[in-house]
């Protein structure tokens, strides 16, 4: 009757690994650009106000303390999870699902335009049936996720690489295009009362990347 005992011990080890590896990861937590994003700053402002009874008078004070705490947590997390990394590599046991833990109120959209002899025209807009260049690719859920992550902390190298790929694809898809413009449209989602009044969110364009199509042909 040794095997049932060993099996029980192994099951408990698995349970422990699942619990430890489900601890919130520190990758995004330690990226300053995530803290500095609009949604990050919004959350900090609200929490600083909520915790004002602890003596926080400004968001900056709260943010500084929370950053120190995050560094301590990251160090502790590293020590706690280290013994289980072998198991994570083997079994893929981890839990990264926060499921909309911090819904994005400052979203971004990827917009693609091309210049022809007649001037600029849009070729891709999210949800548009008319401007649907490379739509199957750009609307794939993994692509959307990758693009959406720039709203929580812009990463230039990753964005540049993807913008270039889009530029190249557009250059091949539209022989008449002289240039392709890839950019991010960022805005603040409107509260329900404004949407009901028929208002549209007003945003701004950022991170423009212009590609001459001749370089891809």
């Amino acid at each position, binding site marked *: 009757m040794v095997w049932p005992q060993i099996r*029980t011990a192994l099951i408990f080890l698995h349970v422990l690994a699942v619990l430890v590896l489900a601890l919130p990861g520190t*990758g995004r937590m330690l990226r300053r650009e995530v803290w500095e994003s609009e949604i990050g700053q919004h959350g900090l402002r609200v929490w600083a106000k909520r915790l004002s009874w602890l003596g926080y008078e400004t968001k900056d004070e709260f943010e500084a303390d929370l950053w120190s705490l995050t560094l301590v947590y990251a160090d502790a997390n590293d020590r706690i999870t280290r013994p289980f990394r072998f198991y994570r*590599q*083997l079994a893929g046991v981890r839990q990264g699902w926060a499921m909309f833990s911090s819904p994005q109120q400052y979203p971004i959209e990827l917009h693609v335009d091309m210049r022809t002899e007649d001037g600029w025209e849009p070729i891709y807009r999210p949800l548009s049936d008319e401007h649907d260049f490379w739509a199957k690719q750009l609307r794939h859920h993994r692509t959307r996720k990758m693009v959406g992550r720039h709203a929580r902390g812009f990463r230039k190298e990753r964005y540049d690489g993807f913008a270039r790929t889009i530029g190249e694809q557009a250059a091949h898809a539209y022989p008449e295009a002289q240039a392709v413009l890839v950019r991010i449209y960022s805005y603040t989602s409107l509260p329900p009362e404004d949407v009901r009044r028929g208002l549209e969110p007003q945003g701004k364009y950022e991170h423009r990347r212009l590609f001459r199509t001749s370089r891809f042909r």
Partner: protein
Amino acid sequence: MSTWADRTKSAWMFWVTLFDRKEPATTWALFRIAVAACVLLSLGLIAHAQMLDVLWVSQEYGGYLALEEVPFLWFTLGPATSSTVHALHAIAIASAVALLLGVGGRLVTFCALQTYLSLTRLNWDTVGGHDALISNALWLLFLCDGSKTLSVSCWLKTRSFVRQVNISAWARYLAVFQLVVVYTWTGLQKVSPSWSSDGDFSALYYVFLDPTWRRYDLDWTAHVFPLTQAATIVTWFFEVGAWLLLPFFYYRYTRERGGRLRAAFNRFDLRVPFTLIGVALHLGIGILLNVGAFSWITLSYYLCLWQPGEIERFFAKLRSWGRSVVTRRVSPAHG
């Protein structure tokens, strides 16, 4: 001292006995089929979008981002070239098909797991929580073979796709535990103001407006804002309260011991409201939001909430209901 030692020994033996339990293989086989279908959906979607070469191939070989070498267990398979990624993708698809059919046992499950892990670990920007749920499920299916029934290997042995065979129940318990951990942790991480009164319980409303997720124009949700608020509150309580399933199962298993709390937990079947809310939540997500295999892999775990006998009775009732509907429709014509 002896009391403490006796109690520890008794508690330990409780778990040894629990994990030694056997049950018919039906639930676990259905879980196998559902998980394999989710692997195929996840890998099929990226192939259908023709994004393998963009997202999972390194920049030097045509992708958009410089990626590290392809991970495989504790080794690497060399650079993320198009041929390596396509080969891994093909092996993963073939393994998932074999898993769906129930051939190859643990070997194909391990193969599906490792190839899926290799592919999804290539680019962390494109990984979702559902990838972790899929790999967790594949690991459990590797630990406890799910192809004993409802499988081609069963047919090869018995010339029937179904057979009465018992397997260990602990793997199903671990799947339930995984589901509980997933929900409870995600609930506890929902500290954003929009999940609380400070943010007017607007979390799901803003999710519906986010172009990262929404499948269609969902601006109309502004007109049913109170409904989205109610859904936000229900979702939060549902997730944070998911841990209650653990005492529910414990008290159900030890119902003969008595006690008020045990009696309270045994008074009604907590799994019914949990499943109804969860299915509604995930169907809503699946219909309104573009999140890949997320809803379907999560719902696959729900199968494990139910004992094989309960699932068999459910399908028997469904069959009998279907027959009665057919009979009612046919009889007037003949009558």
